[in-house]
């Protein structure tokens, strides 16, 4: 279903990010790019063609790539390292933690195939715990663009923000939500729809699911406020505060394990600051499988249908308590 009038982009966010990287290299002539033999897939090979002297294929050896990036960054050069999320955040996680986050070095992570967007590749290539690993690391900032315009800006933000920045990108094209002039910043968010009954927070590809769900809910007279929390860490607490003051109910939906993702982060924040009826959707302590992306979202519980159902359930709780 597509209840919105949004159109699917012709290119995936991984490509949008890398195309912007080539353009940005004319502004910032310093940064280097490292990749792990998937430059054709992450499209960093576009940068490699334009700037071969600053482009390093480190082979299928992500751990070495990330530690080598730390050495380069320790001596002053910003480095973009690129791979698929599973490998970048788990194979190389100690390098990321100890040699990049601890010294707070200028290394940026182009992390493709986030969540179940590597749908047909199966579990080995689906990064469904990456947000948990990366948000846990001190000094790390985490951005998840929801469309191509956001992905292009994420490149600028990553390179203009000191220290490590992780950018989760998707394998397949997403629906275009923003125009090219929309501004983004670290710690920011965008409210894509206003509503009084419930706040739906999401990021990346699931923002589109949330927008679809909001359309369905609107047809039933339910006002859902949809927030794209593209800056997953740090997240926009001010926006959340304002929205919850109005709606008093929160649903978080994400293409990630439900445990230790943004849902858990916001649940902890709510418990401390503003307890409201809450639910979060994501993988329920399970691995997924190969298959059609939309079917997987349906089977594993974070498609628009599930968001609609969960929103109604939460609102029911809210109203029950109000009575």
């Amino acid at each position, binding site marked *: 279903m597509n209840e919105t009038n949004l159109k699917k982009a012709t290119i995936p966010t991984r490509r949008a990010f890398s195309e912007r990287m080539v353009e940005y290299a004319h502004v910032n002539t310093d940064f280097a790019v490292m990749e792990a033999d998937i430059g054709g897939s992450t499209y960093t090979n576009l940068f490699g063609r334009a700037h071969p002297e600053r482009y390093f294929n480190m*082979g299928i050896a992500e751990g070495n790539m990330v*530690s080598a990036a730390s050495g*380069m960054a320790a001596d002053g050069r910003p480095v973009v390292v690129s791979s698929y999320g599973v490998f970048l955040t788990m194979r190389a996680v100690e390098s990321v933690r100890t040699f990049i986050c601890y010294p707070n070095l200028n290394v940026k992570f182009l992390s493709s195939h986030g969540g179940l967007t590597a749908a047909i590749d199966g579990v080995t290539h689906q990064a469904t715990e990456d947000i948990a690993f990366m948000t846990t690391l001190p000094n790390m900032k985490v951005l998840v663009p929801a469309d191509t315009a956001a992905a292009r800006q994420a490149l600028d933000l990553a390179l203009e923000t000191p220290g490590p920045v992780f950018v989760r990108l998707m394998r397949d094209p997403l629906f275009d939500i923003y125009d090219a002039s929309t501004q983004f910043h670290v710690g920011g968010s965008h409210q894509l729809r206003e509503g009084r009954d419930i706040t739906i927070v999401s990021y990346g590809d699931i923002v589109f699911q949330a927008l679809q769900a909001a359309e369905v809910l609107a047809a039933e007279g339910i006002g859902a406020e949809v927030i794209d929390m593209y800056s997953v860490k740090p997240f926009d607490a001010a926006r959340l505060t304002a929205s919850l003051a109005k709606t008093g109910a929160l649903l978080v939906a994400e293409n990630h394990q439900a445990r230790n993702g943004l849902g858990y982060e916001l649940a902890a924040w709510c418990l401390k600051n503003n307890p409201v009826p809450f639910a979060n959707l994501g993988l329920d302590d399970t691995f997924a499988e190969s298959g059609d992306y939309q079917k997987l979202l349906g089977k594993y519980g974070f498609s628009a249908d599930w968001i609609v159902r969960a929103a109604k359930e939460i609102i029911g709780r809210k109203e029950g308590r109000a009575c």
Partner: protein
Amino acid sequence: MTRNTTGTRAERADMLRETAREIRLLILDMIHTANSGHPGGSLSAADIMTALHFDIMRTNPSRPRWPERDRVLLSKGHACPVLYACLAKRGYFGLNELKTLRRFESILQGHPIHKTPGVDMTTGSLGHGLSIGVGMALEARLAGRDSQVYVILGDGELNEGHVWEAAMAANKFRLGNLVAIVDRNGLQMDGPCETVMPMGDIAAKFAAFGWTTLKIDGHDMEEILEALETARDHTAGPLCIVARTVKGKGVSYMENVCEWHGKCPDSEQFCCALDEIKGA
């Protein structure tokens, strides 16, 4: 400030042997004061580290981050007492700081960190130093600097597959400014390397990965100098020096005894160790 090349190699070696003796005394004092640390691997690397810091490397203690400096990464970071002793004696920080090793809020952490003056990068989680060195050597080339990058590896550390990923990359990029020095003391934490995880002929392994290799006695100061000079002049690709060493070198009861990997001597043992090193 710069690389010291005055005097014949024999004369320089004479001076360095005396310096290494002082470094060993500082290592033992530091570990004894902290009541914690790794004497065995610090003492085995003492002669190599002394040669690097007091003769071979181009550094400037008053400008620890001087871009043109040579870098040294103590990948076997648990041996940091030898690094801290060298840095203090070179004047990066006061000798009195050595008394704070491993203490709360000390600049001298249990393993080397980037915040300590003279430490080029955090190391000590084994297996990463050579990769970091690859990055630094690539950066020196990109920036057009003639800095050398020295990486001190333990032989036990070579169990880590990560090291061999770095060895492949150093060869691919023909990093003539990268020098790996393996402190081949033959012991790791649980026992002899050949029992824990046999590494066989380490020089042959690096050679098979495309490196130029040298084998030396890691306690013969003239051999060390000669090898490091050869390495400095070798620009065609990465070079590995496999230095045969003795774990605990200089303290008879520690030499080749595995338990002195991470054990602190008691007061009596400490005094005995000092006497042996002073008298050697």
